[in-house]
């Protein structure tokens, strides 16, 4: 089993490619890898329930650890009680922890 850290900095309102990155995350998880999706910058926007949140919600419910950068959430006024079920706020230190741990890291 391999650890993957997938950092999503873009949002589905801005980029159609976000969907494919999330599909890759799901595929890696289904293939038996441990996958963390870390949302940062505008990537946290769909973590507040809205019309483009479904794919993210499904990932969080299907074995992918979905974290959202606390700093980015605060910048955008997204409080913890507005986050999709299964999405947790986390400090950016988490990314450095995972990098230091040797995961395969992809930034989108």
């Amino acid at each position, binding site marked *: 089993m391999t650890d993957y850290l997938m950092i999503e900095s873009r949002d589905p309102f801005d980029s159609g490619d976000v969907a*494919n990155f999330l599909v*890759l995350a799901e595929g890696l998880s289904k*293939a038996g*890898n441990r996958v963390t999706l870390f949302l940062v910058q505008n990537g946290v926007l769909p973590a507040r329930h809205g019309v483009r949140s479904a794919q993210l919600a499904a990932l969080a419910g299907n074995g992918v650890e979905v974290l959202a950068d606390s700093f980015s959430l605060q910048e955008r006024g997204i409080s913890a009680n507005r986050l999709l079920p299964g999405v947790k706020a986390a400090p950016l230190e988490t990314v450095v922890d995972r990098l230091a741990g040797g995961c*395969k*890291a*992809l930034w*989108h």
Partner: protein
Amino acid sequence: MKTLNIIETAYRATLEEQDDPVLWIMHALKGAGAEQGVVLRANAVNYTVKAQGVPPLAIGARRQQQGPRLAEAVSGLIGKGVEVYAVSDDLTERGLQSEELIDGIKMVRKADLPALCGGYDQVWHW
């Protein structure tokens, strides 16, 4: 160390740079001894199209002499022994047929990307 390089962005600054900077660095890294694979996905699948070309570009009297030759840049990587894949789903979505593409491109379905990632030590996304 083997790296898989997933390239998504296309035609960003390619006229100013007279190349795609990510394809360019793939060549440079190969020259530095890197063992790597390349996956073209999203709009970057268009880099496999044979018919790409650059109309003459002139800004005032300053004419461009060496426009980017992106299909050649991709073919060049293949010629150097780099495995270059294109995501077939993305080609289809963009209305591209196999006869329009340069030779030597390996097809990979979106669903098979996870397995491909597993064959490399690191996966870099561009």
